[in-house]
């Protein structure tokens, strides 16, 4: 591999890691920067989800569709499945939980599904219309995954305080897991308990977001690396036997990874949904 080849590889990979933003970001946190690509695709997918489901919902509510068929059957299947999942985990009566779970599952699945589009398809189109970068998988952006997990975290805090009261929630944070009948020993346990419980609570949005992000980042990175098999050589390589070998290898491996990834993206959407419902269910439980 030549020096220019490795430079091209670096350039290619960097390009796939760079967002289409209003200006380059140098510090870790900078709220004057915005990633247009993440916002564009997540809103597009939100409209796709909400629009298609709303279309079915309106037809069902107006009574024009009596027997379910086609897309309506699919929507009903998803809704019923999510409803079952939520009922299995969450035993209260909160009208927010199930719609929240449905939204999370569908939206995250659509985010992840963008990963299955050929890795250079949309960025390539973007290049031809003059956009320098384009990242098409919203769940591949920390802003996006935290944009999901932080509201979930706030909701758990809100419901914890609403259901248990501020005092009850504080007690939950400070009086367990270590307990003692002796008041002084218990007082000693309070800071330790608070530390442990805080970590438990703070770890949830972090793990929720990073699990999804990690899976999607790795998934896309593998597609990018597989694309590198033929990228460095370009079309002239098809004149050689080893070139054909590489091309076929890329084809087979990309297909295999795509099939495997299909499982991962569904599983990650499912895990995100289930854990959210579990956390909210815990917020509703009194000890």
């Amino acid at each position, binding site marked *: 591999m030549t020096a220019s080849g490795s430079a091209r590889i670096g350039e290619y990979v960097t390009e796939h890691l760079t967002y289409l933003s209003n200006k380059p970001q140098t510090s870790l946190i900078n709220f004057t*920067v915005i990633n247009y690509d993440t*916002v564009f695709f997540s809103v597009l997918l939100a409209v796709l989800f909400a629009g298609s489901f709303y279309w079915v919902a309106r037809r069902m509510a107006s009574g024009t569709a009596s027997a379910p068929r086609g897309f309506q059957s699919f929507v009903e299947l998803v809704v019923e499945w999510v409803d079952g999942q939520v009922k299995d985990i969450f035993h209260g009566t909160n009208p927010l939980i199930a*719609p929240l779970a449905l939204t999370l599952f569908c939206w995250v699945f659509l985010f992840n599904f963008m990963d299955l589009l050929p890795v250079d398809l949309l960025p390539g189109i973007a290049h031809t219309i003059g956009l320098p970068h384009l990242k098409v998988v*919203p769940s591949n952006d920390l802003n996006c995954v*935290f*944009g*999901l997990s932080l509201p979930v975290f706030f909701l758990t805090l809100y419901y914890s305080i609403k259901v248990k009261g501020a005092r009850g929630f504080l007690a939950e944070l400070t009086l367990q897991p270590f307990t003692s009948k002796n008041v002084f020993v218990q007082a000693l346990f309070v800071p330790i308990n608070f530390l442990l419980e805080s970590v438990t609570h703070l770890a949830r949005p972090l793990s929720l977001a990073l699990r999804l992000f990690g899976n999607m980042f790795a998934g896309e990175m593998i597609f990018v690396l597989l694309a590198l098999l033929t990228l460095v050589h370009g079309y002239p390589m098809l004149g050689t036997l080893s070139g054909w070998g590489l091309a076929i290898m890329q084809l087979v491996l990309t297909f295999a990874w795509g099939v495997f990834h299909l499982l991962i993206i569904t599983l990650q959407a499912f895990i995100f949904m289930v854990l959210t419902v579990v956390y909210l269910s815990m917020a509703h439980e009194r000890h």
Partner: protein
Amino acid sequence: MHINLTLLVQMLAFAALVWFTMKFVWPMILGPMQERERRIAQGLAAADKGEEELKQARVGAEAILREARERAGVILDQAQHSANEIIEQARVAATQEGQRLLVAAQQQIELDAARAREQLRQQVGEIAVAAAAKLLEREIDPRAHAALLEEFAAQI
């Protein structure tokens, strides 16, 4: 991997999407689904009920049919019986009528015979008187000999 304004935008979009789903999508899908489930359950129950009713109706119809058949048999028997009775009565009446006619005929015959005998007796009396008159060569005064003649006639 940076945190920026996108985070806030994503949170807002998420909140809006959840609100929309909760308000317009979830209840409008699950509501009709549950309604349809209820209607299907009702329909199935109604079908079961209808089948049960049909079975009962069939049993009832069979009972009615059996009863009707039995009644028809009874009526037939009765009809047969009364027909026999009527025939028997007719036969008895005919026999009696025949007997009566026979008796009347016999009485008539006896009456006719008696009348004929009476006539015959009278004629014989007259003939005897006439014969006697011829024998005596003179006329017998019927008035004078009336008692004798009647006694004579009664002897014949």
